[in-house]
């Protein structure tokens, strides 16, 4: 907190200035993010029909108890959990691997570093479109390649198969987001002290040991932060899944946000949709709290602050 102290003492001005600077964005977010959020919170205790959204009779906890008793929620939660955890593991794993590759010098490195970010720039809708085509059961290049390789999975309709749809969605998601973690980890790798690596080499460490003693401690906070962001973004990812499978087949890719949208716009039950949203938000908040606890603990363990 030294910096905070410094900032206050060094640049104190008129007491209203900070509020003046923060007010426009504060008002903006209040109007377009938090007021709608509060409305949703209220709506989760009402029975509201999409066609008559102004009529919202108060029903108390009924939406929530319906969700819990219905049993569908547990399936949705488990799909969401699998999807989120897999996103985190693979997006960060592939990101870390590619970042390590791109960190070592080779000819054309800057070009490679630029090209790797392509998937991240591609619009989700286009990604959904192209991957739907790639996963097409008969003519998709994915299946054709698998058949060519002689694998049994060839010929399956990936997006229509209850056990293959989620892996397909996952592959697409990881393809789209791994460049982000790659780029962020790559930047963190620049902070690894060269001397530390050299010291490890002189001490006779092998590659894995160098990674463990010199590289990992430096990038660990960044990886933790990425974990938080990838988790939160995976919890709210909509376009890709909706356009590729709409949550199907038989709920195999039905994550919370997809279920929220189905309840609201397919079953026209805005109250239930809102209560799903609230549950999802609580999970995101919980993850955030855990993240801050974990960072605090690791910082203490490492003796910082």
């Amino acid at each position, binding site marked *: 907190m030294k910096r905070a102290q410094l900032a206050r003492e060094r640049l104190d001005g008129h007491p209203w200035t900070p509020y003046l*600077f923060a007010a426009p964005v504060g008002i903006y977010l209040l109007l377009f993010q938090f007021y709608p959020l509060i409305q949703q919170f209220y709506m989760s205790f009402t029975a509201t029909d999409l066609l008559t959204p102004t009529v919202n009779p108060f029903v108390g906890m009924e939406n929530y108890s319906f969700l819990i008793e219905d049993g569908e929620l547990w399936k949705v939660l488990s799909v969401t959990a699998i999807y989120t955890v897999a996103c985190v593991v693979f997006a960060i794993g592939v990101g870390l691997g590619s970042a390590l*590759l791109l960190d070592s010098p*080779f000819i054309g490195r800057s070009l490679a570093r630029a090209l790797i970010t392509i998937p991240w720039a591609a619009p989700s809708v286009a990604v959904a479109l192209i991957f739907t085509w790639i996963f097409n059961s008969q003519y998709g290049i994915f299946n054709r390649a698998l058949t060519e390789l002689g694998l049994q999975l060839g010929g399956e309709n990936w997006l229509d198969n209850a056990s293959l749809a989620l892996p397909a969605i996952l592959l697409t998601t990881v393809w789209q987001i791994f460049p982000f973690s790659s780029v962020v980890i790559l930047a963190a790798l620049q902070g690894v002290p060269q001397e530390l690596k050299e010291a490890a080499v002189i001490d006779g460490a092998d590659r894995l040991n160098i990674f463990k003693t010199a590289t990992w401690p430096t990038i660990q906070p960044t990886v933790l932060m990425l974990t938080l*962001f990838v988790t939160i973004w995976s919890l709210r990812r909509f376009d890709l899944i909706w356009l590729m499978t709409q949550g199907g087949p038989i709920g195999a890719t039905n994550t919370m946000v997809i279920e929220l949208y189905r309840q609201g716009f397919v079953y026209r039950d805005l109250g239930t949709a809102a209560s799903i949203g609230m549950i999802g938000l609580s999970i995101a908040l919980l993850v955030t709290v855990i993240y801050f606890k974990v960072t605090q603990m690791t910082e203490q363990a490492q003796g910082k602050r």
Partner: protein
Amino acid sequence: MRTSRQLEHMRVLAVLLMLGFAAFPIYWMFVTSMTPSSELFASSPRLLPAWSQLSIYAEIFNTIPVATWLKNSFLVAAGTTVLSILLAVFPAYALSRFRFAGLAVLGFALFATQMLPEAMLVVPLYSIFGDLNLLNTIPGLVLANTAFVVPVITWIIKGAIDSIPFEIEEAARVDGCSRLDIVLGIVIPLVAPTLAAAAVISFFHGWNEYVFAQTLVSSENLRTASVGLASFVGELSTPIHSVMAVGVIYTLPAIIFYLFAQRYVVAGMTAGSVKG
């Protein structure tokens, strides 16, 4: 023990595989768009584009309102960019330089927006925009997108401002600058590369956005490219190579523009996130 030469070869192979993984789907979209209908469903796929099919890109502009879609997407993206940058600079400065009672609240509020799914806010936003007469308008989409972009780029710009030494601002104060003069005359020029990055990020968010464009706008001539393209998913009457051609036209500008801006985007993004 492997030799360093073997290791070098493995590394080159790994990099090529990785780049192939990253670039293939986009390449495949392009190849598909350039494949004649007769070969689309042939027993062995065509792996290279048939350049004779280039006319498809002229054709789709006649058969599909692509021009209108792209224009709308551009307007939404440009509006989002301008509004987001205008809104983000001052709170970013406040987050970086001031310590005040509302600081934690502002920081948390900005972060919390990352947790809110668009799909959840669509319904209340629909009614708010209805009250404000913003439904079915481009400015309405700009406002909705900005609400999600501003928090991200505020953090990014804050990261860049953090790295400006205090002394430079103090020198400016001694030279007679007010706080406003400092932000406009010193800070903004110094974080210009990051502002460029933030602008690119805002632009892409607006260009790529789907949920709001789908729900808050209904009229045909205000459709954005994302909504237009999404209407093809799972639809069978439009030939697949035309659909892919539209996809390419929609995706390629984003990617090319991004490759040019890539250096700034990465620098700006990591300035904000890595130091965290």
